[in-house]
């Protein structure tokens, strides 16, 4: 799930030709540069900006739709999207359904669509605030560029007794390098396109953090998976969900063999948030 390394996949020219033929030449071919975004939240923030309103006032519903449209377009041209883009799509599709269903009497089974939407808006606002803070920070007068220390220092200070200098970073990188050097093994396993248990677990916890009532998550998720990844995603998600059930962090229900698997967060869960 190394999202930072998503590359836009080049589409072979002949494919474009074929596609163009099938669709009629009028529709322009799209090249999607997902690599320009730092993950799904970044993309959402960018989309939200097009609404040109305070992030606390954005229409989460239309934001969800914009995002899903984006993912659709990407998939139409067979761009390989990182898993977290798809997880976000699944989550937004779920959110959208919750927002569109008439308000139910609120049980104690998790957040309402409004609450989920508010959480999303909050996260966007927080991310944006950090972006602004970063800009303000980097534009300050900086040592060595705008402000200067003594150019000809005469002694190096701050040594209590020991005249040796080393930072924790030096120490840790020395250790890591050494251990790694000593651990050289010839294991070079070709990376298969497999959802690891860890990834699947992470994905499930991410999603379940915001979902309370019975949900056939797999369905939402699989819809957004490239066919090649469906099997591995299902297998890993299933295994991970069993693990979560065992730990009491998840409940599952199935009507019968081959019926959809429903999951939810345990109702009386000890308020143990997965991450925070």
């Amino acid at each position, binding site marked *: 799930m190394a999202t930072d390394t998503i590359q836009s996949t080049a589409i072979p*020219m002949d494919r474009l030709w074929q596609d163009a033929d099938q669709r009629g030449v009028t529709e322009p*071919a799209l090249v999607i540069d997902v690599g320009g975004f730092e993950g799904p939240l970044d993309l959402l923030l960018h989309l939200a900006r097009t609404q040109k309103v305070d992030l606390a006032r954005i229409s989460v519903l*239309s934001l969800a739709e914009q995002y899903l449209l984006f993912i659709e377009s990407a998939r139409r041209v067979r761009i390989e999207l990182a898993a977290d883009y798809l997880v976000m799509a699944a989550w937004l599709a779920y959110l959208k359904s919750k927002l569109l269903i008439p308000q139910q009497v609120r049980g104690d089974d998790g957040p309402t669509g409004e609450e989920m939407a508010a959480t999303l808006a909050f996260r966007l606002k927080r991310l944006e605030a950090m972006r602004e*803070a970063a800009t303000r*920070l980097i534009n300050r007068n900086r*040592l060595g560029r705008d402000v200067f220390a003594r150019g000809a220092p005469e*002694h190096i200070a701050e040594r209590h007794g020991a005249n040796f200098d080393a930072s924790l*970073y030096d120490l840790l990188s020395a250790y890591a390098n050494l251990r790694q050097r000593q651990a050289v093994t010839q294991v070079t396993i070709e990376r298969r396109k497999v959802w690891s248990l860890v990834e699947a677990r992470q994905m499930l916890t991410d999603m379940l953090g915001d979902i309370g009532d019975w949900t056939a998550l797999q369905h939402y998720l699989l819809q957004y998976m490239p066919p090649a990844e469906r099997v591995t995603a299902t297998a890993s998600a299933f295994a991970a969900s069993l693990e979560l059930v065992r730990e009491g962090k998840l409940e599952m229900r199935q009507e019968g063999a081959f019926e959809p698997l429903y999951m939810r967060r345990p109702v009386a869960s000890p308020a143990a948030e997965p991450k925070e």
Partner: protein
Amino acid sequence: MTSIDDQDLFSEVDEAPSASELEAERIAEALLFASAEPLSIAYLMERLPRGVDIARIMKRLIIQYAGRGVNLIRIEDRFAFRTAADLSFVIRRDEGEAKKLSRAALEVLAIIAYHQPVTRAEIEEIRGVQTSRGTLDVLMEAGWVRFRGRRRTPGRPVTLGTTPSFLDHFGLEEIRDLPGVEELRAAGLLSGRIPPDFRVPMPGLAGDELTEEEDPITQLDIEELGLLAPGGAGEE
């Protein structure tokens, strides 16, 4: 006594210092001037004559240098002489500027600075994306970010924070001086929890209709988002 003439920049603070205080002042000045790194109070105390009031001496020095081309600044419990920030335009050097930080690294740095002590999972929660390798170690190598300790929660995750040289580099006395930190805290944006008054108004929409405040997403938007239609690639 009437007019303090304007070149009297290094003039008095409150009461006249004693001879031994003046000597201590000279020594402190010399030590601070000689060093490129900020010096801690403990370090200065070790070297100044016994019994002098360090706080008073530092205060006097700060005031005396306040209007000059070189200022004495405080970074937490350390002191250093630095050229005055307003003279940046004359002595600014663009060569040798510190390695340019990537956008991701800058964002991570800001999150660590504003949210510290913060765990890696929390950084990722805020950014919504995993932090790629090389981002943190760039910040650590620059000497701005460090491992602080471990959170007392299950799993004991390691927490990250900034270093004194981060403050020095960005001209901050302490973390509280981070631009906008109070406003952000007041707005609840430095917490993991959504503030209670943060609500999104829900239009009671029955379908795909857009509200008045919304525009439908257009082909143009999609292009703008990086969905680039390569001019004529299809027709070639």
